[in-house]
């Protein structure tokens, strides 16, 4: 039974997605509990895979029993097991949250919504778990297509934003496919492990260089790295709240995972160190991403849009950690994948709850919000502390490693950018916190008692929204002190031994 666990990670949500329309057609109120039930299976399988990897080291799973270069295999190592746990956890929390928000945003269409929701998670899991390049493309398209459908259902500008996303996203996926084609022509193989042994002899082949260029460009588009981020703020701002809660934290992280895979598993690290100047290019793009993301975020008054620009900067952090090419930097990048996913999940959950209660997303709408939604705003403060890098929260630890990485690499501009970005984040969040906590109360004028207001609104935020918010805020606080343990058991094995 436990040998088949890796297969369950994909098969359970996929079969669950196939059955969701039937269940929803029978009784649409059952689709939410059904999705939660289905998602517990990959959640369990992902955690046990992670423990198996920690105990016995990386392992593979041959689908259909065909040996790897001919058939398709799953390859579960430290990095992919960690990503599986991250995706299933965040997917599960987003699924809990989807009940109240989703049921109002998609009234009468819950069955289709939950089907796409499950397919989205399946796509992410499939990209992470597989050891075959072409299979990555197939699952990339599953996650993209379900994302297009979900995002297009959003507010006013959503279809137009989605169409732009489809065009740019298809360019990204096609570039990835072109990269696969060029590598296939050079080696004749599609399996990542097989290619990793075949490629070192061909590092100076023009075919391989071009294939690599298209791989990284395609992945950078999916990740929203600086000059290719233009689709991202629009798509994630206009997306329905229950959808951006799922897609925004994970899509960029899965693409960052792919970038790490391409740079350090498919190609050996010495390819990036000595053959192509990819590290320098990525590093300066990351600086640009952090600066542009921060400045554009400062210019926004809509908090959801502001967060999407913060995402642009956060992608810059991860890429910067990768680009410095040393142990501390890469450790920071991988740790930041986890931390940033949790922080963005919490932020989008908070935004979802605020919108669900009918409050606007503009900053002036936050006036005295702490009295109306005390728990939600407390979670928001925790995320804000984490984003600025204040110690007990997890954001501090990944930023610490990132800054260490840039210092080891003697890239002082990168160090300065990271420090400045923390300052920008502090400004960004404290202007909202100030509005929420320190602005003169307006309900005194309205003749309302404070405690009364608190009680009324606390009852009104549905349990399915407040529970994921509190859990994600708790995760942010717990991940910080735990990060030493995470690095020791998982991340240090995921960093290539050459560093």
């Amino acid at each position: 039974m436990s040998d088949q666990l890796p297969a369950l990670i994909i098969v359970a949500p996929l079969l669950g997605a196939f059955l969701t329309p039937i269940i929803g057609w029978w009784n649409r109120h059952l689709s939410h509990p059904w999705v939660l039930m289905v998602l517990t299976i990959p959640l369990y399988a992902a955690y046990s895979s992670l423990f198996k990897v920690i105990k016995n080291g990386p392992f593979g799973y041959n689908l259909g029993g065909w040996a790897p270069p001919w058939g398709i295999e799953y390859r579960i190592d430290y990095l992919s097991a960690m990503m599986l746990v991250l995706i299933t956890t965040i997917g599960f929390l987003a699924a809990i949250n989807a009940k109240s928000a989703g049921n109002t945003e998609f009234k009468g269409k819950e069955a289709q919504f939950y089907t796409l929701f499950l397919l989205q998670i399946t796509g992410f899991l499939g990209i992470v778990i597989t050891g075959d390049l072409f299979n990555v493309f197939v699952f990339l398209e599953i996650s993209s297509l379900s994302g297009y459908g979900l995002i297009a259902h959003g507010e006013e500008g959503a279809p137009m934003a989605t169409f732009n996303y489809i065009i740019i996203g298809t360019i990204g996926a096609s570039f990835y496919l072109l990269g696969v084609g060029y590598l296939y022509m050079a080696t004749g193989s599609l399996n990542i492990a097989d290619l990793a042994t075949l490629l070192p002899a061909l590092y100076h082949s023009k075919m391989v260089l071009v294939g690599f260029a298209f791989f990284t460009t395609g992945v950078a588009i999916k990740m929203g790295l600086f000059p290719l981020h233009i689709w991202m703020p629009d798509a994630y701002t206009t997306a329905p709240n229950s959808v951006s809660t799922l897609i925004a934290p994970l899509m960029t992280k899965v693409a960052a995972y792919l970038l790490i895979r391409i740079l350090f598993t498919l190609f050996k690290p010495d390819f990036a160190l000595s053959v192509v100047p990819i590290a320098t290019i990525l590093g300066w793009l990351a600086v640009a991403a952090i600066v542009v993301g921060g400045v554009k975020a400062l210019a926004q008054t809509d908090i959801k849009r502001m967060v999407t620009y913060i995402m642009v900067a956060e992608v810059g952090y991860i890429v910067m950690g990768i680009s410095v090419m040393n142990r501390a930097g890469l450790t920071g990048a991988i740790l930041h994948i986890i931390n940033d996913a949790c922080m963005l999940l919490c932020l989008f959950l908070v935004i979802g709850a605020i919108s669900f209660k009918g409050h606007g997303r503009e900053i002036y709408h936050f006036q005295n919000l702490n009295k109306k939604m005390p728990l939600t705003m407390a979670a928001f403060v925790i995320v804000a502390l984490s984003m600025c890098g204040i110690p007990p929260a997890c954001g501090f630890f990944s930023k610490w490693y990132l800054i260490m990485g840039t210092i080891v690499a003697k890239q002082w501009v990168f160090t300065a950018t990271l420090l400045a970005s923390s300052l920008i984040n502090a400004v960004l969040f404290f202007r909202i916190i100030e509005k929420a906590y320190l602005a003169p109360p307006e309900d005194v004028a309205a003749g309302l008692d404070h405690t009364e207001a608190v009680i009324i609104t606390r009852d009104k935020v549905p349990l399915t929204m407040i529970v994921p918010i509190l859990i994600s805020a708790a995760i942010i606080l717990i991940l910080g002190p735990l990060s030493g343990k995470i690095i020791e058991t998982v991340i240090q094995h995921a960093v290539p031994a050459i560093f």
Partner: protein
Amino acid sequence: MRNWFKLISMAAVIITGALLIYGTHDMPAWGDPDSPANSHVSPRYITEATKKTATPNIVSAVLADYRSYDTLGESAVIFTASISCFFLLRRIRNKEDHND
């Protein structure tokens, strides 16, 4: 503004095309039976597939057996697209709730 924008896209397209053509320089000649693509993984499909899967059509054997997981993903893609279209367009056709 508009011309400038078109110029930028033109430049991006030309860079992409030039890069792709640069990559073809090292490519095996078209139709070379000994190119890596034709000699590393695929010969085993041709010699073995019929024996192992009892199908004379090797493409079907690879599609539905060796790489059947890709085909599962492919059907999931179609399913995703159909549900997406249904999800997006349904309200426009019919506002009332079918489910009870």
